[in-house]
């Protein structure tokens, strides 16, 4: 599903080039649950944003579902993001002025789905995540765990093939974190490929394998994917 080859990401400050990612070469197969770990500043989130097509200032080769992303114009990359990718953020990033229902509807509204069909999908997702009773509440009226549950529901509502999660349990207490991780495991079993960034060894243990980053480099040889 994902193949990166000699991918570099750097920031240019005057004559100085500061590398965030160096010669990243990796492969992630469909159906895998991969964890990216490493200390702060190792480039984990940057790698995740590149995988999610939110960062386009990199060099090297990136193939996603057979498409050569490195030679695609920005518009086409957005299309790939819309079609295949869902995001879960550490800080949930729900829109404060929208209700749970409306937050869930956002990704669908960018995918040319008719309002009636949209309503059906949102209702089904509310039911699936058991948050029907919260649909008219605003994010500020929910606990952290509930907000992240809505965040995950929003990420998967458009049925993405790839779910990218940046420290998904970073702001939650342990019981809520476990719930989210179990939810990820269920989604993965249902066929969603998951790439998560985490500092937690426990969360990493939910995945199939771990990629370790340090100062922008992958520090351990890639393990053969074993799904």
């Amino acid at each position: 599903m994902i193949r990166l080859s000699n991918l570099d990401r750097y920031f240019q400050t005057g004559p100085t080039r500061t590398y965030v990612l160096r010669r990243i070469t990796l492969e992630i197969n469909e159906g895998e649950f991969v964890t990216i770990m490493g200390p702060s500043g190792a480039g984990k989130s940057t790698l995740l944003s590149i995988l999610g097509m939110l960062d386009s200032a990199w060099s090297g080769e990136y193939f996603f579902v057979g498409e050569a992303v490195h030679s695609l114009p920005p518009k086409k990359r957005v299309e790939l993001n819309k079609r295949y990718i869902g995001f879960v953020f550490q800080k949930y990033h729900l829109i404060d002025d929208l209700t749970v229902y409306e937050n869930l509807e956002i990704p669908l509204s960018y995918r040319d789905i008719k309002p009636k069909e949209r309503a059906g999908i949102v209702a089904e997702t509310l039911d699936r995540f058991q948050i029907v009773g919260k649909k008219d509440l605003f994010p500020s009226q929910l606990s952290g765990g509930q907000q992240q549950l809505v965040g995950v529901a929003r990420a998967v509502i458009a049925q993405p093939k790839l779910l990218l999660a940046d420290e998904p349990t970073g702001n939650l207490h342990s019981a809520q974190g476990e719930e989210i991780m179990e939810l990820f495991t269920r989604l993965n079993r249902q066929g969603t490929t998951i790439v998560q960034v985490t500092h937690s060894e426990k969360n990493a243990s939910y995945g199939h394998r771990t990629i370790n980053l340090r100062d922008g480099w992958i520090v351990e040889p890639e393990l053969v994917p074993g799904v």
Partner: protein
Amino acid sequence: MDTLLKDLRFAWRRLRRTPGFTLVAVAALALGLGATTTIFTVVNGVLLRPLPYRAANRLANIWNDLGEGAGMAQSRFSVILMTTFGGIALALAAIGIFGVISYSVAQRTREFGIRMALGERPYQTGLSVVLRGMRLVGISLGLGLLGALAASRLLAGLLYGVHAGDPLTFIAIAALLSLVALVACCLPARRAASVDPMVALRAE
């Protein structure tokens, strides 16, 4: 229609969340737009529209022929002065709109980042900023025109040639101000469209 209603509801919630800012922004814009309309109503009524007499130009010529050169100069000066005031009011209204929309864009950077990460295209982000800006301008313009109507009614009793609620002037000024507002919204909209989602989401 459904999207428009949702968008209106969302805009209303945002405005309600910051009632002080909304009130000041709408009042300031309404004042600026109303003042511009009033000034141009006076310019049109007193200086541009021909006098309601046959061969009105000749009346002016007679004045000139009598050697009252100062009178002509005075009239020319008035035209320049009033038009300058009108231009300044128009520029201030444009700066006001630009400021309000820029502030609103700065406040919503995180939201734009989220929306882009969820699949919104940059042009959609820009368009939403322009539409929301024009909605605010629409409300302010409505209030401003009501104020201008009241002011021109007052001025009609004081200045010869000024008519209260001259529809042609009002329509022309509303169209001109809408055009200026559209231009003033475009720069913040461009900035919103170029938000880097990852930077916006990390900046919080």
